[in-house]
């Protein structure tokens, strides 16, 4: 009973903010003179209720699952790695450069090298704030936010000078070799990247739920000083967490590059960016792996669906970013916490009413 109640509470805590955000989004759509219900229906019709569309949703969900996990593993320990976006861009750029500069490679080897380079660059970018946080107590949030801007600027310069593809009419690198691309499977949008994501997801599930590190992350998040006092090496754990987070973001970037974009452009990660989407997904999923998986698929459906509302419903697709912001705003508070006794209140009211009526009789 207690377990069911806990699950119900966490479900309500994730669902209510989403509903509130959509309600306010609907008001905004009404104000600009469109019908919110048809807009929302167009958004999810193709992406959730057709086979091809759903495959596309899963395809776009892959990087989101990874960034969601990357955010969750640090946020759960109250370490705020805001640098997922920068680490993702770095990983993507590294895999792109390896992807087009190594010619005539064995596809398997090429793919593995590209993914590894993305992971390593992501970890390197996460290592700097991790060391600063763990050994010098530098606020990791400010550092990662600042490094995001710096990394984006540096990649912009690199993409528009040294690595620029002169043939392209806009700022972009050369496309990666076909040996580094993930091919589509069976006429759908799914590539090999999705199964890889699922394997990583299962591994992370065990890290979160069954491993010692997962337990220690929860403990550090609950009470850092107690964790330290009871003998955990908090410093080393922060480095581990940030490295895992960086590796996941790097992998997300490399995979998205090799399965979807194939070259680095200035709007590679979109707006507001896959890393920031990951934050919403981690919060929506309650920092729990299964929750993250569901949230990533749901949010991916919204995001891919947002392209069609721009075409069919006359609502700018930026509305999805507004709804995303609203969701995060409402997810920052607990609508219902452990102490609010929804079911008990309901029960006592119901029973006392019954008792009253009995008394009257």
């Amino acid at each position, binding site marked *: 009973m207690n377990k069911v109640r806990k699950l119900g509470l966490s479900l309500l805590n994730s669902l209510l903010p989403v509903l509130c955000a959509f309600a306010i989004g609907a008001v905004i759509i009404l104000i600009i003179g469109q019908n919110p219900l048809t807009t929302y229906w167009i958004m999810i019709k193709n992406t959730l209720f057709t086979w091809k569309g759903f495959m596309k949703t899963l395809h776009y969900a892959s990087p989101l699952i990874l960034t969601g996990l990357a955010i969750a593993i640090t946020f759960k320990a109250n370490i705020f790695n*805001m640098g997922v976006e920068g680490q993702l861009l770095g990983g993507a750029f590294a895999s792109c450069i390896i992807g087009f500069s190594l010619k005539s490679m064995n596809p398997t080897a090429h793919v593995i090298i590209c993914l590894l380079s993305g992971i390593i660059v992501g970890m390197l970018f996460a290592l700097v704030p991790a060391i600063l946080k763990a050994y010098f107590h*530098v606020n990791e949030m400010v550092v990662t936010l*600042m490094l995001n801007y710096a990394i984006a*600027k540096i990649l912009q*310069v690199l993409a528009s000078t040294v690595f620029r593809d002169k043939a392209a009419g806009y700022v972009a690198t050369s496309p990666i070799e076909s040996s580094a691309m993930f091919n589509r499977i069976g006429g759908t949008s799914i590539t090999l990247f999705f199964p890889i994501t699922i394997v990583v997801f299962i591994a992370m599930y065990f890290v979160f739920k069954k491993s010692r590190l997962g337990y220690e992350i929860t403990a550090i998040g609950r009470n850092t000083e107690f964790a330290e006092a009871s003998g955990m090496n*908090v410093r080393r754990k922060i480095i581990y967490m940030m490295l895992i987070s960086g590796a996941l973001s790097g992998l997300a970037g490399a995979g998205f590059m090799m399965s979807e974009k194939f070259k680095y452009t200035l709007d590679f990660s979109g707006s507001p960016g896959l890393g920031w989407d990951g934050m919403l997904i981690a919060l929506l999923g309650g920092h729990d792996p299964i929750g993250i998986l569901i949230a990533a698929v749901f949010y991916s459906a919204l995001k891919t669906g947002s392209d069609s509302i721009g075409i069919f419903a006359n609502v700018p697709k930026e509305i999805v*970013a*507004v709804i995303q912001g609203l969701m995060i705003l409402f997810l920052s*508070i*607990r609508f219902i916490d452990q102490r609010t006794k929804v079911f008990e209140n309901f029960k006592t009211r119901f029973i006392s009413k019954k008792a009253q009526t009995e008394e009257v009789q």
Partner: protein
Amino acid sequence: MDYQRLLYDAISCGAPIILCVLGGNFAHKANVLNIALEGMLLMGAFTSVLFTMLTKNILLGILICILINLIWGIVFSVMCVTKKGNPIIAGLAVNMLATAICAFLLKVLGMANLNVNSIVNVAGLKIQIPVINQIPFIGGIISGHPLMTYVSFIAIFVMWVIMYKTKFGVYVRVVGENEDAAVSVGINVNRIRYIAVLIGAVCSALAGINLSLEKMALFTNDMSAGIGFIAIAAIFCGSGRPGLTSIYAIIFGLAQSLAINLSISAGAYSGLFNTIPYFMIVFILAVVSIIKMKNNRVRGFKNE
């Protein structure tokens, strides 16, 4: 390099950072981490230009802009003071919402950016201070800034007085240092925190006005470029003290001005100079944190 230009730009770039820092100090001292400065700054920049364009009146535009930012401040404080939500997540949500709303409204209006050059005369808004602008070198640096830049420097003193010489300032610091003690002597903790956040909202509105309306008469997407976060770095470095944090704000302004002035003559690689402020902030924050840690005598790891 033109040193006069460099220092003029340092003051010019430093002003919005100083305003954000001064506003954020109160929230920092009251123990509410106000990450939302960035979003409020962007919102201030956007609404001031938007409503100046709609009402064709600068003063009205500024007034509405401050009112809207107050609403944002109330939203933020409802989330993290009344509802006891996570201020970091609520703050980032405000930032993302601000960016999203600006992009959305620009799309609805069908414009790539907002331009009010026809209403606002940027050169006319620059104030020439009578005597000082006659001084050779220094006159060209200090004189000729728009109003909000001067307001920001005057505000350093005003905020210092509010923080250290008034009852309210004492209350803010008590609330931050020991909430239980504040409650026990009958201070309304939530009200103090609301006011602290709202001061931040107004100050970042002024910073936004300075950034878009006064200096360029133009709003483009993402024009805040992390100034709110830079301000938070300055607040951390100066531990929320008005004078000290303003000095850090000016240093960060100097870094931005260096980036602007160096990149003028650098050609294709000029973008690399734009990274100077960010790396410099990380470096300074690291140095300050290491010094603070050396003076810290508490055993073990403490997560703030």
